[in-house]
């Protein structure tokens, strides 16, 4: 009979069959020879508290997903342009404002109207060169050419860690800057929300974090919509604005006193340093350019060609937007306003669309795009952290996927750090910009230099031409990185300059720890392990004779390699009681010596530990030290509140024994249900 089942009779006499219990079936599935795959039920909680926790988690994050439920969607060029370019395109919402602010803060406000177009054109040219350089990355690395992977393959560990650190900072700042700018756009449309910007930004970051913990995917069409809505309304605004400037002589809204004062200034004292500061501020428009090169595998085949074309399309769109918005700002004589907060792009939109629904829609689309840009970092940051985790530079838990297949640890870290950055900057985009561009240009430089090495190493068809493009890109971005760091150093770039080496050192430290651990645990490939070579000594601390102790003693007997190496230890303050126990012990548990340790100072744990030390010291020095197995009888409480009443001494003893040399702790649990059965 199997599993208590009797044969079942069939329709014909003699036809019998037996149903075999498949006990593993609810929890596991055989998927190969000697290979089981756990089902969801295998990791289901068994306690009431665990089930409650799981329900709460499922409510907040959704049901756990299996590995095979991961969506591997390929993106068309149109969709990829919207999804990968949201970060880059969204920077056009604040890049112009940063150029104007750079002139204003330098005390040459009139230059904001006369020179900002030239500065924006220079940045657009730089964008073209960087995009053209990254085009080569798309072609050379169809599996995705982030700065980290390109530099790891071509420039070695240190350069790749610098790139990774710069990227991590860049992604964090993308969240902080995009969210802050989005909130500023909202406050520009609804000035009543001005005092709530930090709260709104933190709430938005919390919601985006939660959404990503739920396994939000960037590939859905819904994510492409905000980008195209913004592009449509922004190009319409630029078209209408340019028409009004060129054909209607529109010079902008009624000038404010600040604008009148600024327009009366002369821009004769604009030095090269001020121009460089304006250029460095506006260079934030280039952030996010590398996203397409990183995401080449997500494109439809032929991946490299599609990615390269999308990248160039993105550069043209961003360049046009940026120059167009700057052209409108300078011709409409628009300056950013702090109280009430009015961003430059919001003022342009209000002037072009009027105080109509068109203006509010444009602001909504801009804010949406900026939130989407923040969301792209939630995809890239955890992925990079996971790669670093796999490479041993980050704690390994960053490489583990959570219940919803998302890299939960990385997502949480990004959310917390970005939130802290937003709070410290009081959700002001301008306060964050000096930190932003530095890491971006360091990344560009490392990636382009890596590509130069790549072409020199591989010497593929057309390598000279490609090498020249990347060499120009590397040189130019290096110069810009130096310029940006120098002119923004005091404003906050120093923080990035300090943070990057700190992160590199931290990552190297983590890697060293993992390397040391791996070396310590390494097993030589040629060794064959037959049987344990150390003798096993078993020591059972007891508190009397009871079922739990007897069970532990029986278990200890099975472990001792030699009966003489088995003993029970009883620590007591009352020798009379100990004598009574000894008499009973010898009668009921013969063959297991009981050592009584009197403790006049009433300590229980210390004497046991010291007794083990003494046993070690007494071991013949010419023999290899034995493995000491401390068997702890443990009474398993039925309720959580029971646990306070039992096993407290055993817990303390366990705490003291953890990490002791050649010592193994064996808990022998005794459950109350067994009491009833016995």
């Amino acid at each position: 009979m199997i599993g208590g089942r009797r044969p079942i009779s069939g329709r014909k006499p003699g036809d019998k069959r037996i149903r075999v219990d498949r006990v593993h079936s609810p929890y596991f599935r055989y998927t190969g020879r000697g290979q089981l795959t756990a089902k969801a039920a295998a990791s289901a909680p068994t306690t009431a508290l665990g089930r409650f926790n799981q329900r709460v988690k499922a409510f907040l994050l959704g049901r756990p997903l299996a590995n095979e439920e991961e969506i591997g969607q390929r993106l068309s060029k149109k969709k990829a342009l919207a999804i990968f370019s949201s970060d880059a395109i969204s920077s056009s919402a604040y890049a112009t404002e940063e150029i104007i602010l750079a002139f204003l803060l330098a005390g040459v406000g009139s230059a904001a109207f006369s020179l900002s177009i030239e500065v924006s054109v220079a940045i657009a040219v730089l964008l073209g060169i960087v995009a053209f350089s990254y085009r080569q990355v798309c072609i050379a690395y169809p599996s995705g050419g982030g700065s980290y992977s390109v530099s790891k393959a071509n420039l070695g560990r240190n350069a790749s860690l610098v790139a990774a650190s710069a990227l991590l900072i860049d992604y964090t700042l993308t969240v902080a800057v995009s969210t802050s700018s989005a909130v500023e756009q909202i406050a520009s449309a609804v000035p009543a929300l001005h005092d709530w910007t930090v709260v709104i930004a933190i709430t938005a970051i919390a919601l985006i974090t939660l959404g990503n913990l739920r396994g939000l995917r960037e590939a859905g069409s819904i994510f492409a919509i905000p980008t195209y809505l913004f592009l449509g309304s922004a190009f319409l605004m630029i078209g209408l604005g340019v028409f009004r400037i060129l054909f209607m002589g529109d010079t902008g809204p009624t000038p404010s006193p600040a604008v009148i004062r600024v327009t009366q200034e002369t821009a004769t004292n604009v030095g090269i340093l001020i121009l460089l500061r304006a250029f460095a501020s506006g260079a934030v428009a280039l952030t996010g350019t590398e996203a397409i090169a990183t995401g080449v595998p997500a494109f439809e085949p032929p991946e490299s060609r599609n990615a390269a074309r999308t990248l160039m399309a993105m550069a043209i769109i961003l360049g046009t937007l940026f120059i167009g918005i700057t052209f409108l700002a300078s011709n409409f004589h628009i300056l950013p306003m702090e109280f009430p907060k009015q961003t430059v792009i919001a003022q342009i939109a209000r002037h072009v669309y009027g105080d109509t629904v068109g203006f509010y829609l444009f602001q909504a689309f801009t804010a949406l795009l900026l939130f989407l840009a923040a969301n792209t970092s939630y995809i890239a940051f955890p992925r990079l952290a996971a790669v670093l985790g796999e490479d041993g530079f980050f704690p390994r838990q960053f490489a583990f996927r959570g219940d919803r297949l998302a890299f939960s640890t990385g997502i949480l870290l990004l959310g917390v750090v970005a939130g802290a950055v937003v709070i410290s900057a009081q959700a002001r985009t301008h306060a964050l910009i000096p930190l932003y561009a530095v890491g971006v240009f360091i990344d560009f430089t490392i990636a382009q230099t890596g590509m130069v090495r790549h072409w020199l190493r591989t010497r593929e068809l057309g390598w000279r031409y490609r090498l020249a493009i990347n060499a120009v890109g590397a040189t130019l971005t290096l110069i810009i990185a130096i310029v940006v760091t120098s002119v923004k150093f005091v404003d906050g770039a120093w923080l990035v300059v300090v943070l990057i080496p700190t992160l590199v050192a931290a990552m190297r430290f983590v890697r060293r720890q993992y390397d040391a651990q791996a070396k310590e645990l390494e097993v030589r490939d040629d060794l064959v392990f037959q049987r344990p070579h150390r003798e096993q000594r078993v020591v059972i601390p007891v508190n009397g004779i009871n079922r739990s102790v007897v069970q532990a003693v029986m278990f200890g007997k099975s472990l001792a390699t030699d009966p003489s190496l088995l003993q029970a230890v009883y620590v007591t303050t009352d020798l009379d009681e100990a004598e009574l126990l000894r008499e009973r012990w010898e009668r009921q548990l013969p063959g297991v010596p009981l050592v009584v340790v009197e403790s006049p100072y009433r300590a229980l744990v210390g004497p046991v530990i010291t007794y083990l030390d003494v046993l070690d010291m007494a071991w013949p020095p010419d023999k290899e030290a034995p493995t000491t197995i401390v068997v702890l009888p443990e009474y398993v409480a039925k309720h959580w509140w029971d646990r306070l009443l039992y096993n407290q001494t055993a817990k303390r003893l366990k705490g003291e024994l953890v990490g002791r040399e050649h010592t193994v702790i064996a808990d022998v649990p005794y459950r109350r249900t067994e009491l009833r059965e016995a």
Partner: protein
Amino acid sequence: MSAVRRGRAHARWYRGPARRPVLGVTQSLVRGRRYAEVPTLVADTSAPQFRRAVVALSGGRTDRSIVALAAELARPAKADLVGVHVVEIDWTLPLDADVAGRSEDAQRVLDIAEATAEATRYTLETVLLQARDVGAAIVDEATERAADVIICGLPFRRRFGGDFAIGSTIPYVLKNAPCAVWVVREAMPEEQA
């Protein structure tokens, strides 16, 4: 699917869900009257429906395809699918010898079938049996579970390279099953076609 149905002399193409389990005889009601005897050819493009099917799993090449097929056909009526694998116990061992329970191979046959059904987003109940005769066990299990259909897979094999070999299980099932039996034979290998 096309089905020969009995209806009025004016034949018509009918498209729509079957009104009763198609297995066995499909009866049609036209204008409230039962026309049972006048033969008419009607092409029925709806999927055949059943309430419960026993899928006989041999652990062979056809298992995945018959499970996927059964899942697709079961979906419209949300029918129950029962995957049955029988481990044949020869007469040298008692019938209740612990053979199938210890056999990882037997468990795997059912687990793979279960996973195949899940991949098509359908649930397959699995049953592992020990019996002296595979065919009898399948028929008896289907009978006990009141299945409408038994679905079997049949690999294309030749006996010593000669005649097509159908084995003994499928003829037994075809001969003795009280319900409908669908046999899905795998394609003939190219070199033999």
